[in-house]
């Protein structure tokens, strides 16, 4: 069941605002609320790196004013994929290192070269090492070791 973004789902700004407040108040990272077949999820990254400002939710219109700095704190996400994100090509289980006792392949702040292994995704008992699609710096890691991931789910950000 995918998050529904069809046209009849009126965007309830007030609800998002209330949930955002609730997030901050409770120090949770995510709230999901479902009613009448509509589902809304409000999430925030607790370990946001100070060096890596999150990208604006909407691309700035061409010729318009420069994108304003993102609001700190909660941010409504409808499974948004941040720019520079490396997404999962499959449904599976993600591993951050070659085995449970080894250091992770990459950490926030690491420079990686194209083709370097970032993560392993296991699906149907097949180990799939995920190569870096390009050279860059890892600015954010969105998953934890052993976590199930969906197709298209952002795994980490490479800038």
């Amino acid at each position: 069941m995918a998050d529904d973004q069809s046209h009849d789902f009126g965007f309830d700004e007030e609800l998002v605002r209330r949930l955002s407040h609730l997030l901050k108040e409770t120090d949770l990272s995510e709230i999901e609320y479902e009613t009448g077949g509509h589902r809304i999820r409000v999430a925030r990254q607790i370990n946001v790196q100070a060096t890596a400002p999150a990208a604006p939710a909407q691309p700035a219109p061409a010729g318009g004013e420069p994108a304003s700095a993102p609001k700190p704190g909660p941010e409504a996400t409808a499974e948004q994929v941040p720019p520079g994100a490396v997404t999962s090509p499959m449904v599976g289980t993600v591993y951050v290192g070659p085995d449970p006792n080894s250091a992770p392949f990459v950490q926030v702040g690491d420079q990686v070269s194209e083709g370097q292994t970032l993560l392993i995704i296991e699906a149907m008992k097949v180990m799939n090492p995920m190569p870096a699609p390009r050279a860059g710096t890892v600015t954010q890691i969105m998953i934890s070791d052993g976590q199930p991931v969906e197709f298209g789910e952002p795994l980490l950000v490479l800038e």
Partner: protein
Amino acid sequence: MTHPARTLDLPPAYRLRAHDALPSTNDEARRLVRAQDAGHGTLVWAQEQTAGRGRRGRSWTSPRGNLYVTAVLRPNCGIGEAAQLGFAAALALVDVLGDLMPQQTQVRLKWPNDVLVNGRKVAGILLETVVDSDGTFQALLLGLGVNIAEAPSDTAFPATALQWERAGRAIRPEELLAPWAEHFLVWTNRWEQDGFAPLRRRWLTHAHRPGQRLRVRLPNREVHGSFHDMDDRGGLLIDTNRGRERLSVGDVFFAEPGAAPGSGQG
């Protein structure tokens, strides 16, 4: 001394790369794929591995006398479907052991592709992909390890060696490799023509019975339940007290008879 590869009669679909010792046949196969030196059907075979490994970096005890081979496969499909070749490899070994082992030997499969002889693990399959940086699926590396002469004694699931389960002279690794390669070719051809259904049917005749209690260790939890079925893509369907779950990862253990039924998930 003549290398055993000289006398090995493999179907022409294969190209054999025989080594005395390698750190890991899967690693060597990956190196060959990266160097564009391993077409579909390349078999990397070593008499021993100095850094043999299993799933999640677990070491795979690899002394001389056992079989260590990695098949480089470049099937005309996506990664998800290619995973089904692991079943073809396990079924091929079941066929071979049917011929090789004494008649009363119990040969079983443990989801997805562990081969058990008389209730103990005798072979493991390690599947890894080689993917380009642009996401192109290059090859599936199918590593097969069969305990012929030796088996480790300290594994989570009890292990055995073929030689311990039969009387008579020692089996040489090449005596297993050649017929396995034959049967594997038959199963992969079958899979290419008719899909996964015939593999699934055959697998079910050698695997779990419906209702059999299983415990599956996942990366961050454990699932207890009873075996329901294997679905048409190779997923394990297990009935838990929270309902039916489909698993695509995890290590299967057989629950002890006295274990509480449906004791949930850890």
